[in-house]
């Protein structure tokens, strides 16, 4: 198979609901065999986009290509794409086996083939023991695996997953993140997952499209989104970020009363423009005396500490930032509320955003 051609190409995909634009001219390619995450806050259009790819919503404008075929006008039952529903949508009157076999029965395959492929998938999803149970006698995690097996048995070109882990408890969710990733590697099918959970996207996805108000705000691999956020929204949505507002100056931004905080100024900004400098909590280190060698230092007062086991979050009040400054420490240093400290970081770890 030609690996350079995308498995799905969306061209200027849009969806209007009355006066509301849910999806606004999105163009994106999903590559063969990748794990792609559509990430964003609720109402950003990610689920609408997924439902359009599955065929349940008709785009108001734009085309969708599967390989080289234009599939924009195909009904859901004619698309070699399957959707795993957030509610799982298991058929309540059928056994686990009946649910999984249903999709193959629709393809009118010979009975022996159906049986063999269903057995294979049940085995892979560790459901062989439960094959004769009805859905109402399954746990949440088991239901999730049935829904996954039911979609995968069809061997779709692309598997779409709508908030696949949202209904599970936290511990199981973390297990299933790795499980899903492992499974995706095993079957080699392109997965497109919709999630509002940035951690889930970072753990599972090869590439993430962070959406906002119907548009893709930034598309890239998890490391790029975390370390080189393109906008303040991205920096804020992915992980925790500290922001200093100021105006562009020579080699950084001027953020009184801290003076010039250094960083690389993006090309589109010129001196005097308002800009934001962002630093991740784990990149900041604290000192009790004014450090001379540090590139950047701002004065702050410790408000409180939150102990997480593996590390400690320190919250500080710093002049002229809207929220508290958050610093993440490995836990060996100790500070007490009210203490005055210097917050320092390397220029390489600061990013200036428009």
């Amino acid at each position, binding site marked *: 198979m030609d690996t350079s051609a995308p498995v799905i190409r969306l061209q200027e995909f849009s969806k209007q609901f009355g006066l509301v634009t849910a999806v606004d001219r999105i163009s994106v390619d999903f590559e063969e065999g990748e794990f792609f995450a559509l990430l964003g806050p609720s109402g950003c259009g990610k689920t609408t986009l997924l439902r359009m790819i*599955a*065929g*349940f919503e008709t785009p108001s404008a734009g085309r969708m290509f599967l390989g080289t075929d234009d599939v924009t006008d195909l*009904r*859901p*039952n004619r698309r070699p794409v*399957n*959707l795993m*529903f957030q*509610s799982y*949508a*298991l*058929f*309540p*009157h059928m056994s686990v086996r009946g649910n999984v076999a*249903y*999709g193959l029965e*629709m*393809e009118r395959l010979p009975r022996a083939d159906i049986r063999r492929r269903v057995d294979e998938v049940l085995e892979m999803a560790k459901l062989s023991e439960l094959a004769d149970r009805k859905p*109402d006698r399954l746990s949440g995690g088991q239901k999730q695996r049935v829904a996954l097996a*039911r*979609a995968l048995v*069809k061997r779709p070109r692309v598997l779409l997953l709508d908030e696949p882990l949202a209904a599970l408890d936290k511990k199981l969710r973390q297990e299933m993140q790795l499980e899903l990733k492992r499974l995706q590697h095993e079957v080699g099918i392109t997965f497109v997952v919709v999630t509002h959970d940035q951690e889930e996207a970072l753990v599972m996805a090869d590439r993430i499209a962070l959406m906002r108000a119907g548009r893709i705000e930034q598309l890239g691999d998890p490391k790029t989104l975390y370390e080189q956020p393109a906008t303040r929204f991205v920096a804020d949505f992915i992980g925790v970020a500290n922001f200093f507002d100021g105006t562009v100056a020579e080699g950084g931004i001027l953020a009184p009363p801290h003076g010039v905080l250094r960083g690389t100024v993006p090309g589109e900004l010129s001196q005097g423009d308002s800009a934001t400098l962002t630093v991740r909590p784990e990149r900041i280190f604290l000192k009790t005396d004014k450090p001379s060698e540090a590139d950047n230092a701002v004065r702050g007062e410790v408000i409180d500490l939150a102990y997480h086991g593996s590390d400690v979050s320190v919250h500080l009040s710093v002049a002229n930032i809207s929220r508290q400054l958050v610093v993440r420490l490995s836990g060996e240093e100790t500070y007490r509320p009210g203490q005055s400290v210097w917050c320092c970081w390397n220029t390489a770890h600061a990013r200036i955003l428009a």
Partner: protein
Amino acid sequence: MPDRAGVHLAARVHLRLVYAFLYIPILVLMVLSLNRAGLPTAWTGFSLKWYGVLAESPAIVSAVRNTLVVAVSATVISSILGTLLAMGAERMNRSSTLDALLFAPMIIPDIVLAIALLSFFTLLNFTLGLHSIILSHVVFNIAFVCAIVRTRLRNFDHSIIEASEDLGAGRFTTFRRITLPVIFPGVLAGALLAFTLSIDEFIIAFFTAGPGESSTTLPMRIYAMIRFGVTPEINAMATIVMFVSFALVLLSQRIDRGSTQP
């Protein structure tokens, strides 16, 4: 403060009296249908002969047949139409006026519905007969079937319909293999209720029937007989009808309740 035990006792006695009031007349009827001499005043010994007399009366046999034809036809038609109506009404945007209109045939007094239907048929120059009774029964049965199926649809997860399509099924296959089996207990409960209502319906059948034996249903027959006094075979007939209705209502309740429990 009143004595709690006393209040409790009074409530229990009250409950017994209510049940006695409801069921003693029916009990009397059943006992009289087994009275050999057939007199309503004196017990002369146990006998099933009045049930035998029923079976030998051609007028009654014909009336039973007519009633079954009406009840079965009206049940089948109203079950199909009522189910489709329920699905459409659930899918549509909510309009409380339309909802109320769907329930109306259940609430409108039978006599009003009967007069309305008769006037309507007359206006259309429609020949009256068994078919006009069937049509009339369909009218109120649809409302009952629709109401029961809708309670079933309210807990229906519509994403399973999308899941079926997503897995490659067309709309008809989805209906046949997914939607219908899931709502079937509701449809069956609705059908049983429709059958029960139809089998002993009198007023509407009386108004919309044609002349003569050919469209006389059992309740109409009984009414005709009763004008010459309550005879023992009427008691026997009423007992049978009561048992059939009672069994069907119990069955319909059992089906609807049994299926909603996980």
